[in-house]
């Protein structure tokens, strides 16, 4: 009977089914190659969630919208593809703001779809109405409030193009519920309409030749590699340039891995908590060439005293970065990979043996070091993580002392193997970003290195890791303090500790177990290797609770607002002046 009627329906010349806005939206997302949506539902997005039931896109239900944005961010940084977030209106949308700002600061492609009240109710304080397009405006690359259902394909096409071309950045699309539930009668294939948007490409040849000449005249060149080089996948080009010039390379926090950090030419991270030898090279070079970095205050300290006497070259895809902080002697606006590929052809091979000798001396004289005399240190745990993985794992960090130690000790061999919140310094980023990275790289080892403070900001995503049985590993470096602030209070504020004691931390092993996740506790130096190795080899998610000494400090340190000359390599014995620079 049933069979019969089915056949009958099939035979009928069925009228073409009317699509809804939500169906058109999801179809467009599929067509743009979206694999995952990180989201949390709510009233205004029910029509979209309804369509997702039948879509091949996998919905990752988070426990808080901030987690969704950091997951999308981690996914994007691990894969180079934009992460997609879907949340409801009002508080659902405002909870994404921190994650959007984080992505914006670090130039990460991300599409944030927010539900909105129905169009006729806009501006009337409807239930769960928030002007998210307005609230997010300063932290997005672009945003849309959709007014016509039939515009959806064009807007999606523009959004995916804008978010991941030029200097990437988040794009927000606000979707009134009547738009997504209303009929879609347009074409799914529409043209973009963004006449004001252009993407710099290979750069001006004259500018490149000028830079090549400056390199050829230099005796002590230094390459400074930033996130832009990683984004444009300039790994091979940068390697070719460094090798041809025999120039040492330093990297920013987010430029780690573009040039292999294990290479003898690499001096590691520069700046506030960079290596002493990277900072010494900075002071003594006669030419510094930034490839996709924005001379951020963490690396230049004091822009009036930055590399005085050295020729400064800036390669960047964003014209607004040229001269924003440091006025360069020469610059090229273009894609880092394309510009450097061209530049390599025009520089002459150099004999820099003297310069490399000098740099080698700094490396020998001022190595990174730590001791375990007073008990287990964070550095020991993080160093051991590196010794076991040797750059094979994708390291995702949170923000604070552990982040700086991870940057110092976990050397990266590829740009996508290091994920960290740089510009924004968003605590709570690390764990959900690692989840996103793990979704993007299901077969690779992904390790989140978090502090006890930051982990607790987004720990509800333990549920997300648990239900998906993600093999992600979380190392919680627990010093029971907001350690970086405590360090500043100790060094610059007479050790008057204020608002940094994290008394009341949970038992992280039990916490993990409560979510059905394996928990491992480490507090002894002699256990670190064995326990960490076993935990990293475990098939499912693991929380590794590393209880470390409470009062560890990150050195070297360049006090905020000072130039690299003022680097503190050893723990100081006297009180230091209060820093004048930004945070």
């Amino acid at each position: 009977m049933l069979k019969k009627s089915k056949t009958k329906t099939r035979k009928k010349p069925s009228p073409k089914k009317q699509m809804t806005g939500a169906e058109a939206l999801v179809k467009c997302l599929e067509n743009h190659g979206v694999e995952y949506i990180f989201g949390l539902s709510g009233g205004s997005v029910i029509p979209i969630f309804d369509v997702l039931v039948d879509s091949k896109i996998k919905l990752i239900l988070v426990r808080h919208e901030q987690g969704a944005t950091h997951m999308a961010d981690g996914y994007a940084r691990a894969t180079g593809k934009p992460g997609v977030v879907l949340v409801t209106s009002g508080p659902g949308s405002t909870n994404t703001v921190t994650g959007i700002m984080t992505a914006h600061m670090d130039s990460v492609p991300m599409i944030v779809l927010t539900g909105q009240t129905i169009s006729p109710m806009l501006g009337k304080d409807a239930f769960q109405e928030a002007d998210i397009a307005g609230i997010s405006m300063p932290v997005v690359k672009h945003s849309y409030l959709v007014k016509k259902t039939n515009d959806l394909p064009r807007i999606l096409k523009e959004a995916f193009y804008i978010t991941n071309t030029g200097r990437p950045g988040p794009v927000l699309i606000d979707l009134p519920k009547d738009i997504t539930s209303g009929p879609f009668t347009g074409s799914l294939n529409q043209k973009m309409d963004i006449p004001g948007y252009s993407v710099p490409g290979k750069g001006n040849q004259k500018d490149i030749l000028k830079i090549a000449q400056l390199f050829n005249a230099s005796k002590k060149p230094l390459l400074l590699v930033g996130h832009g080089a990683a984004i444009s996948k300039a790994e091979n080009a940068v390697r070719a340039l460094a090798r041809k010039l025999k120039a040492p390379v330093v990297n920013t926090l987010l430029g780690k891995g573009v040039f292999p950090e294990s290479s003898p030419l690499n001096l590691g991270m520069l700046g506030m908590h960079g290596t002493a030898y990277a900072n010494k090279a900075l002071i003594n070079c006669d030419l510094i060439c930034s490839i996709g970095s924005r001379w951020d205050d963490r690396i230049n300290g004091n822009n009036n005293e930055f590399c005085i006497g050295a020729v400064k070259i800036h390669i960047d895809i964003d014209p607004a970065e040229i001269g924003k902080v440091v006025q360069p002697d020469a610059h090229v606006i273009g894609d880092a990979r394309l510009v450097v590929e061209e530049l390599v052809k025009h520089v002459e091979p150099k004999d820099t043996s003297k310069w490399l000798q000098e740099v080698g001396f700094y490396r020998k004289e001022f190595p990174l070091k730590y001791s375990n005399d007073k008990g287990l240190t964070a550095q020991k745990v993080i160093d051991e993580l590196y010794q076991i993985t040797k750059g094979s794992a994708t390291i995702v960090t949170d923000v604070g002392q552990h982040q700086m130690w991870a940057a110092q000790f976990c050397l990266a061999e590829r740009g996508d193997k290091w994920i960290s919140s740089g510009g924004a310094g968003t605590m709570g980023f690390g764990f959900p970003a690692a989840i996103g990275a793990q979704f993007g790289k299901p077969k690779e080892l992904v390790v989140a290195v978090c502090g006890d403070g930051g982990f607790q900001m987004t720990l509800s995503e333990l549920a997300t890791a648990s239900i998906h049985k993600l093999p992600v590993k979380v190392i919680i470096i627990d010093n029971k303090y907001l350690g970086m602030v405590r360090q500043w209070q100790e060094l610059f504020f007479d050790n008057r500790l204020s608002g940094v004691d994290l008394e009341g931390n949970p038992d992280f092993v039990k916490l993990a177990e409560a979510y059905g996740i394996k928990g491992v506790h480490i507090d002894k130096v002699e256990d670190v290797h064995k326990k960490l190795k076993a935990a990293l080899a475990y098939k499912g998610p693991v929380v590794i609770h590393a209880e470390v000494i409470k009062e560890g400090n990150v050195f070297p340190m360049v006090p905020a607002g000072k130039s690299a000359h003022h680097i503190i390599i050893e723990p100081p014995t006297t009180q230091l002046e209060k820093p004048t620079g930004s945070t």
Partner: protein
Amino acid sequence: MAKANNIKKKDTHTISMLVANKPGVLVRVALVFARRGYNIDALVVSPSVNPRYSRMTITAKGDPDTLDQIIKQASKLIDMIHAEEHSDIDAVHCELALLKLKATAANKTVIAKLARKFHVRIVNESKEAVIIEQTGTTEELDEFEGLLKKHNIIEMVRSGKLVMAKGKEST
């Protein structure tokens, strides 16, 4: 964009922008100024020849380096077609003012006298008040206002500066 560097240092700057005619563009532009503590003195938004685009003419005070950064950041807005600073040399500029004065015989005499020097006409007269319209450069408007001040200006509305690049240069 590069022009911003060549313009001599001065406090007041005039920036002309061609933007996509879409909602929210004004907020995006205003945010670029506000975030850097730049005060907008005058702002004129008007249609352009092509209905897809609008023209914004902004007069603002501040240091030239910050302005350079503002123009660069504003140029990055997706809806920005172009943004450029214009000097008095490379562009024609003018402004319009409406002034309301008490309709006294003394005032009328003064207006008649000044009207010869400035481009001024009476656009409305009632028993109590007279409204005059003046067009000219910002400096001319300032001068006129200064001369009239003692004659009890009741109200004043100014359009804000308009500029247009000379010759074949686009504004």
